[in-house]
């Protein structure tokens, strides 16, 4: 905080985390489509292949199911693979290995093995890539016991949480919003971890709690700054991990503010916000609520191509401002 902190982009922070992990541990290696000389579809692996060679920055054929399975098998037998799905949408092709194998193997075998695999998922809309390259499927994986699912929102967190994920003995799924890749922020040098399963209060406030994930954290902070002009004091919680969820942090905040708005990009119905809302409804914080719980999530449509439609399909800052204002002013 005292000196001018070094800034990196979110993508650079991921790359630095992977490089540090590979330097520290021979067992760590990267697998994925076009992550070698191409540098990854979003240039996240960049030039790592030049530094670590093709054995440790390993291009795979376009075989998401097989590739994910190879990563699982390598993890079970002693390596530490980081598998990149080129787009999170392609998780659909690898679901068998993620859900039936990676998530369950330790349990099915009575704790005799662990599956220390990390899978990376570039996610989200806003790039004009339309319906099959823009989804936010984190809630799908968040529904599966055995997986840990994280959504770091800042360069600082993505580096620390990825390093924590690599150290973790269990499978960790990391959803990276594509619009965050170029976002810059302070990132400490060297090795550090940010714990999986802990939310972070990004802004303190008294009138309303916004629980947001990934890019919606930044949109919520922007909305909070606007609402400050109207004397509405918003607390913004960055959930960071959706499984296991930091229930205590959310409950404590809602007890304080008495209002809850969930903001997330995944489709609203049966999404992360549904879980957060239900969790509060079941908790002691319910008695403190002064307004109904509200969710802002993705529209009930595939992500459209047209830029105006695409924007309308996910919560934007004005939507958050309006929802928050309505909740606080009692319009709802």
């Amino acid at each position, binding site marked *: 905080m005292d000196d001018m902190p070094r800034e990196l982009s979110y993508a650079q922070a991921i790359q630095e985390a992977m490089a540090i992990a590979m330097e520290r541990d021979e067992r760590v290696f990267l697998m994925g489509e076009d992550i070698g000389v191409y540098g990854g579809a979003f240039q996240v692996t960049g030039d790592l292949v030049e530094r670590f060679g093709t054995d440790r920055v390993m291009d795979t054929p376009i075989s998401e*199911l097989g590739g994910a*399975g190879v990563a699982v098998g*390598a*993890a079970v037998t002693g390596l530490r693979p980081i598998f990149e799905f080129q787009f999170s949408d392609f998780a659909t092709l690898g679901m*068998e290995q993620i859900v039936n194998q990676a998530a369950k193997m330790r349990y099915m075998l009575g704790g005799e093995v662990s599956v220390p695999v990390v899978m990376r998922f570039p996610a989200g809309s806003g790039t004009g890539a339309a319906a099959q390259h823009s989804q936010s499927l984190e809630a799908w994986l968040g529904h599966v016991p055995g997986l840990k699912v994280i959504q770091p929102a800042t360069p600082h967190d993505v580096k620390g949480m990825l390093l924590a994920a690599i150290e973790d003995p269990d499978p960790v799924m990391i959803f990276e919003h594509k619009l965050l890749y170029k976002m810059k922020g302070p990132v400490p040098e060297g090795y550090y971890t940010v714990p999986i399963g802990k939310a972070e209060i990004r802004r303190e406030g008294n009138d309303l709690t916004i629980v947001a994930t990934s890019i919606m954290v930044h949109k919520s902070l922007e909305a909070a700054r606007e609402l400050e002009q109207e004397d509405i004091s918003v607390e913004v919680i960055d959930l960071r991990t959706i499984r296991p969820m930091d229930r205590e942090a959310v409950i404590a905040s809602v007890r304080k503010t008495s209002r809850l708005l969930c903001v997330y990009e995944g489709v609203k119905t049966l999404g992360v916000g549904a879980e957060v809302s239900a969790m509060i409804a079941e908790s002691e914080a319910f008695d403190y609520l002064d307004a109904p719980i509200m969710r802002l999530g993705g529209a009930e449509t595939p992500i459209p191509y047209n830029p105006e439609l695409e924007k309308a399909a996910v919560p934007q800052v004005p939507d958050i401002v309006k929802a928050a204002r309505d909740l606080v002013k009692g319009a709802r």
Partner: protein
Amino acid sequence: MNKAAKTVGGTSGENRPFIYREYSPEQLKGALRKMYLIRQFEEGAEESYMRGLIHGTMHLSIGQEATAVGVCLPLAEQDQIASTHRGHGHCIAKGAEISRMFAEFFGKTTGYCKGRGGSMHIADVNSGNLGANGIVGGGIPIAVGAALTAKRLKTGNVVISFFGDGANNEGAFHEALNMASLWKLPIVFICENNNYGMSTSVERSTAVKYISERAAGYSMPGVTIDGNVVSEVAEAVHAAVSRARRGDGPTLIEAKTYRHRGHSKSDRNRYRTREEIDDWVTNRDPIKLFEAELKEFGIIDEQGIASIREETKSEIEAGIEFARNSPSPDVVDLERYVYTEPA
């Protein structure tokens, strides 16, 4: 090749099938013993199921013992296997203990998976069995991953990927074979072709006549062998394992065999004839075939066979007894093993 082993077992040794040249009489009798263990284990499991001691379902490999035993015969202890839903035989052949397998089937804490896996997820990581798999083809990419580890860490291990004929039409099979060949990984793919994926015959499900033809598409050797003849299986696997250990990459072996029982406990056997089943049971039973050879070459006599059978029978009885007397998991431990507990 073991020179001492080559000379044992009679005068015309050089003309005998592979295993009689390669392995000692003790090893061969051990192989027969394992086949009996598998057969009787499954009969014991089936009976326990009928008596209501085991719940759920199970997939019996009775009739396929020569493949399980023949594949594991040429393996080193530290070599690994990834198995299938019809995997009891693989597990025993690789070296698991009968008692802990029964305990798993009975859902007990002394079972290999502490009662969390059951028949379909039976595993014994210590003897190199990475686990059966409830998903057809699910274990194939995992086996390739294990072979990648072997290559990276230079362990010298070879991995065996077991799967059935049904799996040869899964995408995972094709993706996994391609990568294994591309990266020249130390792995052998064993397709146990028992001619039926549940009720659908290979003829009705598979565009090629021989599943081993698939190997050509992935630039690896492919062979079809009689999976009911131990020596044929062991010979093909021995060659493939040597090739894999040399760093020359994978092989696909299609072992033709037959399951005497139905697919699972719900099977009414409507897709195959009584005559077909009887023919395999009467004329091509792998244990009978192996015994006939062993007797012909003077390695064992009727009395020797009977004493093996008695021995395995009491091992099975003791195993069931152990399982019955073992404790069940405590319900408070329901969520254990979902995640690694902090040290």
